């Protein structure tokens, strides 16, 4: 098994972002709605929640889902 240069670069990025106290995807799901509401409303994000949101830097899938949630929230009130 060998990795391509692009895969190694992505792996290096993940490794640099790795922290011992990271949260997992299920834990993030508990934080995501509040974080989405604050981001959508452009309101300040409390430090603990901001740290939880660092999960998005190392989890492309949660990041993709978060962007979609944000799209749903920011479009709220528009025509359906």
């Amino acid at each position: 098994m060998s990795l391509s240069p692009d895969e190694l670069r992505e792996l290096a990025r993940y490794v640099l972002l790795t922290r011992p106290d990271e949260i997992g995807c299920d834990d993030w799901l508990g934080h995501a709605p509040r974080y989405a509401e604050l981001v959508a409303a452009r309101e300040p994000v409390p430090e603990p929640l901001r740290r939880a949101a660092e999960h998005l830097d190392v989890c492309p899938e949660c990041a993709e889902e978060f962007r979609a949630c944000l799209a749903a929230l920011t479009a709220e009130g528009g025509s359906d």
Partner: protein
Amino acid sequence: MAIVSGRRPPSPGLDLSDDAAASGLTLALPIFLGANPVTERTNEDWLRSLSEMAAVDDAAVADLREVLRRGLRRALSGRAAADDGFIEDMAQEGVLKVLSGLAMFRGDCRFTTWGITIAVRVAFTELRRARWRDVSLDRLVEDAPARCPTTPPADGSSQDARQAILAAMHGVLDSDLTDRQRQALVAELRGMPQAEIAAQMGLTRNALYKLTHDARQNLKRGLEAAGISGDEVRSTFDL
């Protein structure tokens, strides 16, 4: 759960109390954002209406399904695979997930935002699974990628340093990770969805996350043990 298996009309006599925000309003006003009106409710109203399993408010269930349908339509806008039928199915699945997970609601956001977040995860999990369901994890990990440098070396010395770091990373990957850690990590790097990796490895998504987190920590420690600093890694990969 039979109560959400079809589109039953609201039960007569049920109180359509109100409010989408956690604002404590008490007026019962249906809002018309689309073809179907949805009654506004406070978080407490939603919980009360949905949690009494002996007499769940059918109107609240129908409204929840409508809220999720609208949220999914906006969230999945522009995705060809997310047609009306898919969105209806995912809204239905989302309702089931919400009803079975009411105890998980923290109350620090609107109930509807929480529900949409859950439905979005359900929908993306299904979309990813559909794209990857015929891909074998073993084959994906075994298949060697093309070896082509993404950036040309600037000079001989930086090329030497780069090669040393790449060799160290491969060394750590090969010797400091378990087979399962390596398999999961490489599958993620090659784009396989976590739900699919987890399914093929017999893990939950959270257990998979822990496995790859441990793998990344092992890698980090391995590079540090090899005398490679974070700055050197950043410089090498232009991060």
